[in-house]
Every structure is written in C-alpha cells, then in structure tokens.
C-alpha cells in the first residue's frame, strides 16, 4: 500500500499516556505524518516520452513515492520525495532528470 498513494488522511492519534505507547519503537505502516521539510535540493523530473514503464524506479525508490496508479504513466509524489536521485541514477532510459530547485 505504501507503494501507491498511501491513505494520507489516516489519522494519527497521539498516545495519551504511557500505556498507549507501543513496546519498542514501532508504528503500523501506512501513516505519513508530515511532508518533507523542504530540504530537497534536486527534484526528479520524468520525461514520459522516454519512459518505457519498466518500473525500476518505482521498485528502487527508498521512500515509495513513485506511484503507478495514474493511468498511462508514473507520478512522483513531491510531497514525500526526498530528492535522493536513486530513480534518476537507476533509470536505464535516462528518463528521469534531477533538476536543481535550490536556486
């Protein structure tokens, strides 16, 4: 599920007291609490013309923010993309370009 538009609206209920904390630092997956804090310096930009839809980027994105639900192509969720550039490096078609957005 995290690989395809997580239900961002799933509400995070802060624990009220110690008894509501998990044992061990753990939380059910699927919760995205805050968008990235704008520390991304480069954003991946997809060239749909070059993309063969092989989904290597989707598979390797460490944050699972490349989504396949959009008909006809991929979509990068810039709210959560951290700009690591793995997708651009791994794309064999060179269909992803890292664009400087810190300027």
């Amino acid at each position, binding site marked *: 599920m*995290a690989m395809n538009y997580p239900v961002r609206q799933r509400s995070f209920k*802060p*624990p009220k007291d*110690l008894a509501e*904390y*998990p*044992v*061990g*630092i*753990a*939380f*059910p*997956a*699927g*919760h995205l609490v805050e968008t990235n804090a704008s520390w991304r310096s480069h954003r991946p930009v997809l060239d749909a013309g070059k993309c063969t839809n092989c989904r290597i980027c989707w598979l390797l994105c460490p944050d699972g923010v490349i989504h396949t639900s959009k008909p006809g192509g991929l979509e990068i969720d810039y709210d959560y993309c951290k700009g690591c550039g793995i997708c651009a490096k791994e794309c064999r078609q060179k269909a992803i370009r890292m664009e400087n957005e810190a300027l």
Partner: protein
Amino acid sequence: MMPAQKVFLSGNEAVAAGVRLARPHVIAAYPITPQTTVIERLAEMVEDESLKAEYLHVESEHSALSACIGASAVGARTFTATSSQGLLYMAECLHYASGGRFPVVMMNANRSLALPWNIYGDQRDSLSLLDCGWIQVYAEDAQESLDLIIQAYAIAEHPDVLTPMMINLDGFVITHTYELVSLPSQEDVDAFLPPFLTTNKMDLDHPMSLAFTAGPAYNQAFKQLQHQAVVSASKIICEVEERFGQRFGRNYPGLLETLYCEDAEFILVTLGSVAGTVRPVVEKLRSLGERVGLVRIRYMRPFPDTEIRNALAGAKAVGVLEKDISFGYEGTVFTNVNSALMRAKVQPPRLLNFVGGLGGKDISAEDIEQLFLRLKRPDDGETVVFI
C-alpha cells in the same frame, strides 16, 4: 526432570553449552580475548550441526550487535559475546538494542580497558556502560554462567521486560577456569524456555515502521517505558529463578546473595568471582567468632536497592570491593550501594570503597582478611582505598 550430565567445562565452554541449549536462531560475534573460546565452541557446534543456528562472521563488534538487532527485529532469538574494547566498540549499538526493546543476550568477559594495554580481568568495561539500558548480571562461577544464559532468555524475552541482557564473567578467572558443571538435558531446557514470540518485529501480515524517530514530544515516553521495563525485571528475575529451581534443582537468591548478614557487624559487598575468595575468609573469621558477612551483588541493573538496605541495616562498617573506579570520584558499585543506603531512613554504616583487581591484579585471601581488619579500624577519613 531428565538426568543432568556432569561435565568438566571452562566458564566460556559452559556459556557455549548454555547457548546451545537455548536454541538461538542467530549468533553474530567477533573474537576477542578472553571471550574467544565461547564463539569458537559455538562455531564448532554450528558446523557439526549440533546447534542449528545461523552463525554470522562479522567484521567488528559493532556489526556483531547490529546483526543481532536486525535478527531480533524479525523475531529471532540471538546471541553475541564480547569483552573490553569490543564492548566499548559496541556502545552505540547497546543503546539501539535496549531502546528498540530487542532482547539480545550477550556474554561479556570482563577485562580491563586500554591504556595500558592489558588482557586481564577487571570490571571497568561493563560498569562504564551501566547506563546503556541493558540488564547486567555478574556470575561467580561456570555453573552460574551456564544457568544465567538459560535464564537470560526467559528474563529478556518476557513481555514485561523485552530488554537485552548482559551476562558478565570475570576474564580468565571464570572464562578460562575449568569446573565440574551440571549440564541440563535439552528436553528440560525446551520445557523451561519456549520459543521466542514477540509482536515487536517485522511481519508481512502486520507491516510496521520499526526503530524510527521520536521527536521531543514523544521521545521521553519511550525512555520512561524502558526504565519501567528494567525496574519490572526484578520481579521477573525472581519468578524465572523460582521456575528454574523447580525444574533444575539449583536455586538462585535473586538480585543479590547474602552470607551471615543477619548479625554481621562488618560486611564486604562485592560482585563476580572475587566473592569466591571472600566466602572462605568469612567462614574462617566466623569460626574464630568474628561477626563478618558477605553480600554478593548479582544484578547491577536492575539494582537491588531494597535488598542492599536490608542486608546492610545492622552493620557497623561496610566495605565495597570492586574492580572498577570512576576516575576522580569512587567506584561505580560503591556509588550505587551508597545511594541505596542513603534512601534508608536510618543511620548508615561506615562505608569504605576498596578498589582492587584492576588489570588483573590478584586479590588474595590474605588481602581479604586485611580488608576486614581495615573495616574494624576507626574512621581515618579515607573513603576510596586502592588495595
């Protein structure tokens, strides 16, 4: 109970035998004197398939514990062993394991810390890491070492505890000394120690984020829970020891052991193998009519504060003998004993801190007799005494 086998084992070999009986899934360790023979025996057991475990050859102690944490995070029972510099090299991961509530069991061969370089036993390695959130226990001999390994999994994996546990053996004095050890049967250990079950693990059916960040709003609560868990381990330790005694016929006294403290005027408090030297001296002085006693601290965390107060309540003078010094102040065991006594609303006995055995310096029976004599002498204002 199945008949136990009597075998002649070193402390390290007794630990390895205990680990095999506990059936860990993953062992990751890096060799260091005087721990090496533990993991050599375990590697042989894995190779000859008498122990069905994954044995990971790692490149450092930091990696050894990291591997155990990772394995524990998928619900595996894990074991590692180290000593001295290796334990310090693990320091970062010690906090990861306890903070993540991964019940890794580790044997530490107590050994001095460089410099000067030295491979012999003292307890500065583990005592300098008393605050890392692990349960810490100190064995007196090979049998206790073996029994503690088996008990450790039952304690550390208990749902109220879920905290890693460090079993300390004095380097060489315990690790390399051969003793006759009673080896429990696998059937009995299996009945005593069921497989490890936890919900604090990666699980495809219940996907969770594990071991993540907690900011200022939530971080302290996790630390409070960790503290509660170690405190509640006191009760679990006693329950586990009772169950152990019923099944294996060997009874352990809880967080500390006392000898003649009921009416003793002069008491030595110590931990680890040196208690074995103090014991016959106490017996001898008792036979001469001296009212002397011994407290052997077994667990440093959780700390037996109530038990310390009870044991030392009637004493005139108490000496804390430890192989440790917190430079510029006093020994860490002394600090803890002193703190426990300060909480008692009675006039505390006179307290002396005997620091000895550093870098393996011998502590003889004659030295112990001298310590009791020193306790009887009038207060000369000195607290920390190197022996």
